[in-house]
């Protein structure tokens, strides 16, 4: 199902000391299958590593994953680091973003204030993130895929 469009590069990684690898492994597969060029930085990726990779690969989007509950600390100043490195990319974050906080809307607000363009919870399907990417990056896609968008 490679899209009939130019390949777009996205950088993917788990931020901080988090070592949860399954989610991004599957997301990497899903993004590749959808036609993106994926740079997977893996787990325990620093803010600087995200920025360097985004510059080196001219990434159009930076996708940050966090599942161990310390996302807010790990992302403090992240967008400043990206800015300093002249990264001009969409930024998404997803996962278990807050521990013991049930109201996801509040979590979304927190991370939007930190500068993220989109915030996803841990129940998000890869398709949902891909559909958002396609819209945000103005990727031409087929109708049948657009109807799978649920958010």
């Amino acid at each position, binding site marked *: 199902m490679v899209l009939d469009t130019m390949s777009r590069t996205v950088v993917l990684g788990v931020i901080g000391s988090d070592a949860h*690898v*399954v989610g991004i492994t599957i997301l990497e597969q899903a993004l590749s299958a959808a036609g993106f060029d994926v740079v997977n930085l893996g787990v*325990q990726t620093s803010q600087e590593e995200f920025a360097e990779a985004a510059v080196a690969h001219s990434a159009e989007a930076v996708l940050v994953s966090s599942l161990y509950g310390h996302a807010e600390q790990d992302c403090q100043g992240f967008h400043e680091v990206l800015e300093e490195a002249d990264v001009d990319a969409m930024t998404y974050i997803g*996962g278990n973003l807050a521990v013991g906080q049930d109201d996801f809307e509040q979590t979304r607000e927190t991370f939007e204030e930190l500068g993220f363009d989109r915030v996803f919870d*841990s129940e998000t*399907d890869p398709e949902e993130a891909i559909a958002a990417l396609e819209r945000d990056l103005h990727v031409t896609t087929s109708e049948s895929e657009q109807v799978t968008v649920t958010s």
Partner: protein
Amino acid sequence: MIRDERIPSDELRRIDDEIRSGWSTGGDVDFEEAIRYHESLPASKRFADVLESADKPLLQPRAGVPRLDDQIELLEYLQDDGKADLLPTTIDSYTRDNEYGKAQEGLEKARETGEDTLNGFPAVNHGIEGCRELIDALDAPIEVRHGTPDARLLAAITFAGGFQSFEGGPISYNIPYTKRHGLEETIEKWQFVDRLAGAYTERGVRINREPFGPLTGTLVPPSIAIAIMIVEGQLAATQGVRSITLGYGQVGNVVQDVAALNALQKLGDEYLPDEVCVTTVFHEWMGGFPPDEARANGVISLGGMTAAIAQPDKVITKSPQEFQGVPTKEANAAGLRTTRQVIDMAIEQNIDIDGIAEEQDLIERETRCLMDTIFAHGDGDVVRGTIEAFDSGALDVPFAPSDSAKGAVLPARDDDGRVRIFEWADLEMDDDIKEIHKARLSQRADTEGREESFRMVADDVDAISDGKLIGRPQGKGGVGSAD
């Protein structure tokens, strides 16, 4: 260049001295005095003897809290109310990162506030005296469980402290646990740990070593796990270890799990030197648990059922609160008792399931392919071969966070729920075996009326926590919840 060779005695002493200077408690280690302490322990606390002489699977939970008196109380509870046969002491994360200073801060804070400010027992900080107080307080043998890439000081102190079993290994405590430690580095460090265990063994104190079988805990194909267990067993044997417990994590298909445990014992006996006593440990499901204690009890019971049929030497149990993280001691003991009840009801039944021999044969063939490629990569040296094979991707572990493994191989369940390999990447395997996997996955794709794709992988990762074994299309798979 590091090879699979025994560390010479003078080199052992040199490293030992260096290592023990890393934290104040290291200075208290006196090998001769430690041997005398071990000799003073009753037979019921000699881990290797208790495990190797048991006539049915022994049960062991996971448990570790920062303060010594709390740890004693916790283990007493698991021993008395959970009827655990073997006890654990799980080490905190700072110690795993060799951050003994931070562990000390946490321990002191725990002592002041009474709260569990560390996620385990900082054995290095407790020192020999603290360890022995723990050993003395409990009736059952106790194992050190951790996840430490460089566990040299931890081993020096806990061995001298009276522990006679030590989990981990250079691959199994590297690949699933850390991103940046090189394999060559962890192998070198674990050679010391094994050599130290071997030094005790030479003096009649057989320290039991237990490579961590579940690896990444997520749909690991049995042959990959078994090959790594054999490698770690060989490395330990070279350094003089004589009691080795090879591990395996439940994948949830009873036939495949029983076949894998059989193959693990058989190949372990075959590949390891005759002077090593090889035992096996079965880990109840290490993947995601249902967010519901009632359903979690079902998952635990399927593990008990499997253990009753395969009869490994040891079972590491899960608790019904697995989903939410560290369980209460009551939930931990409940997991033990649920497992015990299932095993005790089922173990005398002579349950002989069709197809186990065939599956075992497949697992053995796959494992031999991997072992052959490891030996070939190292020109006969298992250490070189392991490093080179991981480097080339001929040996690989799915969902490995470590940079030392490609992590490019991807598993998926077949139509019976057995774990097969969907994406081989560069994993070395005979073509006819690949064809078998392909055929089984294609059968599943037919059943589900969809293409074989990474979606199956994603669905399978979430399936058990969603209440099924196989991630069939009707089940929604959330990526973020996959870990």
